[in-house]
């Protein structure tokens, strides 16, 4: 039980990836595929954020640093959550949204061209 709970984030992230992946592959509707893709990407971000957390860690912001200098020796690194994965994820989120944007733009164009967003119908029109 401890094992299960301790790694619960990881289990959920895998489950979410699978859900997203399923949607990307099995759904015929292009918008659904994009929704799946979004879930998939969010799952990965969840994974990264989970990497950074540690028991008892706090938000990686130096309190009071604005008013008077904090002596570097007084900072205990172990108290803070590792911020690096978070920073990376800011980029990843933006990238994910751009991909979504491009994909949705494509969908709009596809709809204008084929008048549908169902993959099987488009393929039928193409052949």
């Amino acid at each position, binding site marked *: 039980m401890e094992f299960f709970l301790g790694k619960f984030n990881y289990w959920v992230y895998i489950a979410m990836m699978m859900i997203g992946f399923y949607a990307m592959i099995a759904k015929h509707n292009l918008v659904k595929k994009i929704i799946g*893709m979004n879930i998939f990407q969010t799952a990965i971000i969840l994974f990264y954020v989970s990497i950074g957390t540690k028991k008892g860690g706090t938000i990686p912001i130096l309190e009071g640093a604005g008013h008077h200098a904090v002596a570097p020796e007084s900072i205990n690194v172990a108290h803070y959550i590792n911020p690096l*994965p978070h920073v990376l994820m800011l980029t990843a989120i933006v*990238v994910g949204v751009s*991909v979504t944007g491009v*994909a949705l733009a*494509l969908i709009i164009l*596809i709809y204008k061209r084929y008048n549908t967003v169902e993959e099987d119908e488009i393929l039928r029109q193409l052949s």
Partner: protein
Amino acid sequence: MIHQAPILTIATLLLTAFWVPIIGMFKKESAYYIALAAIFIAFAAACGTLYSVLLHGPIHYHMGGWPPPWGIEFVIDYLNAGVLVLIALISFLTTISAKKSVEQEINRDKWPAFWSLYLLLIMSLMGMTETGDMFNMYVYLEVSSLTAYGLIAMGEDGALIASFNYVILGSVGASFYLLGVGYLYIVTGSLNMADLYRLMPGLYHSKVVFTAFAFFMVGIGIKMGLFPLHVWLPDAYTRAPSAISALIAPTMTKVSAYVLFRIILSVFHIQFSTMIIPAAKLLMWIAAVGIIYGSIMAIAQKDIKRMLAYSSISQIGYIVLGLALANRMGLIGGALHIFSHAFAKGCLFMVAMAIVYKTGIRNIDEFKDLNKKMPFTMAAFCVAALSMVGVPPTAGFFSKWYLVLGTISGRHWLMTAVILASSLLNAIYFFRIIEKTYFSSFLGGGGHGHHKTPTVVMTEAPAMMVIPILLMAVGILAVGLFNFQIIHHLLQFIVPGGLA
């Protein structure tokens, strides 16, 4: 100045990419010339980088002055200096050649956007080549994918859906790559490749490292169109605007192949994929099946671009096979094939572009007498085709030679057979075209021996299109004849010490 060269390649392209649409709003035609100038500067900078590397050894360029492992680092060593110049050169030639084709195929209103995306694509490919940081690599990977989605979508009927499929698969690939980076970060706490390389041997038996490796393979495999993850590739190459096929076919998959080399050789150690897990063996089999599959599918195609796309799948197999052989000759062969295939496939797609531009013909069965209409283009096609088949002294022969040496010295006889058989299969589909073009004037017309030559007027593509094509053909021969120089100065350093 010269030590700023690595960043200059990227910065020029990036900055120009932002200005192109703005200036393009006022004058659409100017977009192309600005793009061309930017690519030329990037090319010059790439050459400067290579020069500096050859003279002073690998360059470590720290972004914003932050030393690794905190800051982002550009590492340009011998292999990627070569790849960088390769990318710059090929994209420069393609750009010159592409002008007319783009003007024909792309709506005038879209030109600024097109060239802006084009610049970003080249920028991201160069970034992927130069970076020494795993996450930075991911960013460039996604930028290259995003721009490629957009560019492919500008193509003919069906391009939209091809692009959409690529979006889906491409983001899965990129996400897998990102996961791999995450897993490595868990165990090492670092994103810098050199750092990872140093930390890795102690962690060989961690399950997390295995998982990361698997994710990398899948992620990069999708990007480079490695069988069986290639499903996006044929449609994308076929439907994309001809100029874009000519740009991404030689560069994008090659850069991804380079990334695979980087990850296997200088993030993980080569011993990891041969001794700790049987990854090399698995990759070898995948590559072998891919080589044969790609060749056979190429034989079945009638559309020249689609045929070339399948042939790319097969050729990617060669590169991966060389890597998977994990011996001196194999690695050199695989790396050399990045160069030789980039030139050959670039040339072939540019020829396809010229043919489509001038005649609109895509179906191979209609190629009859094309040699009389476009003699220079078809001559270049022949050189490239011979390189693909592996006839000396073209570049393709030499990479095949090293690969064969690699398979023999590793005692992988079946792989030897695969390489040799595949060169025969390549011969089938390339000579089919040559036969159709050059030697079928009297097919079906009966008659024996002597007959009048049918008069066909020569309508060669414009010089601006043909000259780059011919230069590519010369490049194929040059890579072949000077392969030893390339290996001696650039590629031999990728072979880790102690490898037979």
